[in-house]
């Protein structure tokens, strides 16, 4: 038992949790924007993967990791745009399209790796983003360990999530987004351009997921690896739902998922020898349990997954 306590209450778990939560939280915020506007986005996984790829590619050709990040945001956004064109413009089923996007992204990134780097698996190494140490903060005991030194994207992620929260709940645009997802006809009749809002949100969600991907490939690592998103996009969607379609709560949910993952890892290295697979299952089982509990309480945007066409107001 004491070993279990050692495993769980270890300050390094918290630091690791922050590092692992960032890509999930960013994509979860993307999911929140997309779904608040009424578009289901199961394609976050593919958008994240594409972002990770574009980040490394951009960094390779420009030599500047920050330009790589820009590439990732654009790349993820482009995949988001595909999702938007299909679901909003062409009224394709949201979930089916998302699945297609994920398969397509996996194939495309690996294909392009072979075209660009002549091999699949791992790309060339590029310049990573490195880490920042916040002067002052890093010397504070405990807090310094937890927050003092991280990749710059960690701090940017926190900032973005606060900004995202402000955008969603405190600005006119945010109100329009929420209105669109709740009641597109109502939005339409007060002159809000439903399609424009949805395009914006879905593309934004792609960019955010892409940024999450860049965190994987340029902050945590400095290369692209085949299928490196490894299911984080799906976890992000779960975090988005568990977080009640709210970026801040989504961050909290991402923390929870990552924390279980951190514990899972530390459990393995501890002296407790539980079968590896059983330990590795923990985060997923926990997600199922949480979803089962959380969905009852949170209500999705009312028009989520529905198509809307101006001028076809229901009679």
């Amino acid at each position, binding site marked *: 038992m004491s070993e279990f306590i050692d495993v769980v209450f270890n300050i390094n778990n918290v630091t690791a949790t922050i590092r692992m939560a960032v890509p999930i939280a960013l994509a979860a915020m993307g999911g929140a924007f997309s779904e608040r506007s009424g578009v*289901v986005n*199961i394609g976050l996984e593919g958008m994240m993967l594409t972002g990770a790829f574009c980040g490394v590619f951009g960094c390779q050709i420009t030599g500047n990791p920050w330009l790589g990040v820009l590439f990732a945001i654009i790349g993820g956004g482009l995949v988001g745009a*595909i999702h938007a064109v*299909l*679901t909003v413009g*062409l*009224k*394709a*089923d*949201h*979930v*089916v*399209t998302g*699945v*297609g*996007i*994920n*398969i*397509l*992204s*996996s*194939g*495309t990134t*690996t*294909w392009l790796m*072979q*075209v660009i780097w002549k091999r*699949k698996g791992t790309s060339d190494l590029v310049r990573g983003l490195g880490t920042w140490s916040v002067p002052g903060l890093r010397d504070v005991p405990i807090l310094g360990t937890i927050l003092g030194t991280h990749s710059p994207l960690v701090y940017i992620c926190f900032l973005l999530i606060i900004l995202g929260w402000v955008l969603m709940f405190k600005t006119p645009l945010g109100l329009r987004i929420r209105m669109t997802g709740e009641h597109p006809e109502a939005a339409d009749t007060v002159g809000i351009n439903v399609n424009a809002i949805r395009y914006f949100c879905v593309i934004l969600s792609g960019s955010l997921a892409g940024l999450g991907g860049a965190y994987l490939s340029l902050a945590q690592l400095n290369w692209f690896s085949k299928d490196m998103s490894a*299911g984080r996009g*799906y976890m992000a*969607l*779960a975090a988005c*739902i568990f977080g009640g379609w709210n970026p801040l709560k989504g961050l909290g949910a991402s923390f929870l998922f990552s924390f279980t993952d951190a514990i899972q890892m530390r459990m393995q290295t501890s002296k407790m020898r539980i*079968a*590896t*697979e*059983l330990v*590795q*299952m923990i985060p*997923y*089982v926990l*997600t*199922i349990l949480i*979803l*089962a*509990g959380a*969905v*009852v309480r949170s209500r*999705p945007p009312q028009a*989520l*997954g*529905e*198509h809307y066409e101006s001028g076809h107001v229901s009679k």
Partner: protein
Amino acid sequence: MDLERGVSKFAYSVVAVVLALLVGAVLIWASGYDVKEAYSNLFTGAFGGVYSLATTIVMSTPLLFTGLSVAFAFQCGLFNVGAEGQLYVGALTSAVVALALGWLPPVLRVGIALLAGAGAGALLGFVPGYLKAKLGAHEVITTIMLNYVATFLTTFLVKTYFKDPGPVDQTVLLPMGSRLPELIRGTRVSLGIVLGIVAVALLNHVMRRSVLGYEIQVVGQNPHAAEYGGVNVSARTVQAMMISGAVAGLAGSVEVMGTLYRFIPYFSPGYGFTGIAVAVIAGQNLWAVIPAAILFGALQSGGQTMQLFAGIPMELMTMVQGLVILFVAAPTLGRLLFGLKMRVREGGGRK
């Protein structure tokens, strides 16, 4: 009636595949490969000769089951992304049962092992079905998570309880009497493909003719009306998910008993996910699952040859599959591109 619609939808699916292959050709060309060499390999690999055809059938067999599983769930308004996990539990259960029942006559042994695999898949399908029916948890997320759980769990069970004493984590080989009979000697074409077609026929019959199928359809199309009509919505949701899970479980059983002859962790190259593509192409018509599965089996077997002899990476086929799904998902795209007249199913989002 809707069958007609199903046909026009399927015809459009064929167009979508052609379109995806065209995009693929552009990609092959742009990457500096020889398009003609690539595609001639793709096609001979899929249909050129007995062995190629047999390979296509072998590769289609699990897809027939997973595709049917997902397509069936679609009819109940459910999106089963968990076929992959259900396939793993079905596969392991069948392997274990087939090994344990060595004393039974082969026919019984195989029959029971298949049923056990289906049962295990159904059990795994029960979880998301129940969570959806009783708690409203979206089945897409829960089934994705259960895929991880199922792969980890089966791996754990194999290692801990059913391991072949050799250097690899896997079960021992099934004895001859525990295997599905081979239909074409020298290939792995087994009774599985026949079972798959029977399963399609059976489920199609259930959907079109039975009270259960009718109720499942009503629940899928309009749960409020189902409630009004005295249909137990929760029970039908759970049952539909269990049937879907059972069929996906059979995909694993058939693969283990007809092709691999043992359970190996991580053996599936994503049959469950490709099954989604198969189901999307098949649309509302369960019969269409058969040609759709064969189509994807052909893409796989032809894709291998393309990789073997033309050096084109397999990812091309992954991309083509993704494109097919996207093209099929957006029928209006076809209208834009070809002026194809077809009725679009109203209301996309399933909740």
